[in-house]
């Protein structure tokens, strides 16, 4: 699936999820030392005092692989992603329960360094939100702040990120132009480039292609494919084909619950739950 055989030759494959012993271990798995990049154990989240928006989410995302989250609108996909880098902190009155761990470290523990967490966990939001600054500055912002590279190497890094996000050719002559003057799709790719500039370990993408044309979508998918050699990616998508193409594991959310989480091939060919099958065959959602 997804050419992982080719990858296996170059680097160890992601470790199997230890909390799910039912899974058949993959061939190279024994060699991989790392635990899950992201792990939720009975995680709950609510925006206010009422019902949980997310209830009992338990899943483990393997490192250096793409995990897709699918599900009908309003089921809590964005809420889950945003909980991972504590974007909800700004909102008063939110509640959570259960465990959420990134690279083994608890996200919501009292001593968690939220800033350090967010530096490691990049995020591409559902709606493009470039800074009202130049195209160049948008990408250079993160690396400059976190002193990731020498100032001399910054232009190279910016170019690389913009190329990876399939935006370089369109903006190379207007790096000093305001980013708010780009089209919606270009802004979204700029936000992807900006997230890459920070060189995160874990990249959360909330419907990164919903504003893109088929060509840009394909470029972003190629990018995701390329990135998974070094990064762990969690992508929310409404596009089943996209989930099937880019991800190795897929989680199906419905009404704030995790209905099914399995290898992408299984989810799309032989799902265990009726809801999942109904959703992926387009009978609801």
């Amino acid at each position: 699936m997804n050419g992982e055989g080719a990858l296996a030759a170059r680097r160890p494959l992601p470790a199997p999820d230890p909390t799910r012993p039912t899974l058949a271990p993959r061939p190279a798995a024994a060699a991989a030392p790392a635990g899950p990049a992201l792990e939720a154990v009975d995680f709950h989240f609510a925006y206010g005092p009422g019902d949980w928006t997310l209830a009992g989410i338990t899943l483990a995302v393997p490192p250096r692989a793409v995990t897709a989250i699918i599900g009908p609108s309003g089921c809590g996909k964005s809420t889950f992603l945003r909980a991972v880098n504590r974007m909800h902190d700004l909102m008063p009155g939110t509640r959570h329960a259960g465990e959420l761990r990134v690279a083994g470290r608890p996200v919501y523990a009292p001593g968690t360094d939220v800033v350090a967490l967010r530096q490691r966990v990049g995020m591409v939001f559902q709606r493009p939100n470039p800074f009202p600054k130049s195209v160049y500055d948008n990408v250079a912002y993160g690396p400059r702040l976190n002193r990731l590279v020498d100032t001399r190497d910054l232009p190279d890094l910016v170019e690389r990120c913009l190329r990876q996000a399939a935006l370089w050719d369109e903006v190379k002559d207007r790096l000093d132009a305001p980013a708010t003057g780009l089209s919606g799709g270009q802004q979204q790719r700029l936000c992807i480039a900006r997230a890459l500039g920070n060189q995160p370990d874990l990249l959360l993408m909330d419907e990164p292609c919903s504003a893109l044309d088929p060509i840009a979508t394909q470029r972003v998918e190629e990018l995701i494919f390329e990135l998974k050699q070094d990064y762990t990616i969690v992508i929310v998508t409404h596009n089943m084909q996209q989930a099937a193409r880019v991800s190795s594991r897929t989680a199906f959310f419905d009404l704030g619950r995790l209905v099914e989480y399995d290898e992408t091939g299984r989810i799309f060919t032989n799902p265990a739950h009726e809801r999942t099958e109904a959703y992926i065959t387009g009978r609801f959602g």
Partner: protein
Amino acid sequence: MNRRIWRRTRSGLMVGLVGLAVVLALVPLGLILGHLLVKGAGSLDWAFFTRGPAPTGVEGGGVVHAIVGTLIIVGVASLMGLPVGIAAGIYCAEYPGTRLATATRFVADVMNGTPSIVVGVFAWTWIVAPQKHFSAFAGSVALAFLMVPMVLRTTEEMIKLVPHSLREAALALGYPRWRTSLAVVVRTTLPGIVTGSLLAVARIAGETAPLLFTALGSQFLSTRIDQPMAALPLVVFNYAIGPFEEWHRLAWATALVLILVVLVLSVAARIATRGRFTLRG
């Protein structure tokens, strides 16, 4: 067919009404400016800007002492009032739910509605009376007091316009909260904050009442802020109520200068807003 004609008539009528409102709003402004120009422009010569007042009964003389005085009093007031107002505005916008912010906002609203003469009386009670002499500094304090709530509220409103998603973008890159506030939120609203500040400066530059009990006015060119000092609005006031025709002429000219200063500040505020990277949508 009929409906289309009716729609057009209605549209034309509305545009006409709106245009009329614009004209009505502009007429007083035009009248004031025109009247000032007619009455005052003739007196604006080199001597007017470079000389102090002539002895009573003597023709001519200028208002350089008042121009310098206004610059100093307003400058010192801005040095005190702007940083406090902007900082408090940022605080109120960034921590909107806190008790301190709610209290600050309430006090600012009350202060915004306080007549400036009352502020002048307070400055007199707190500074002039204990020191037993009038001073430009007391005037600056009174004006700074008037500035703070104005600047606070505009700053807060400007910052509240920054979309939430922009803040999230910065936080998601690992910006600490305070750096997000300064580097992203304040930076993007800077033109607006500058505009608000300039407009506040323009507003207080014309204030007369608070200066009557504090800076008092003076016949001499002075740069000592612990002493009474002249100011343009005070000169207008004193000359205008004086008995001499010559004084009235000077009052008109000074009023014109004052309005020109305010106009220049307002235009500067407009230019400051025309930044390249302003918020869109």
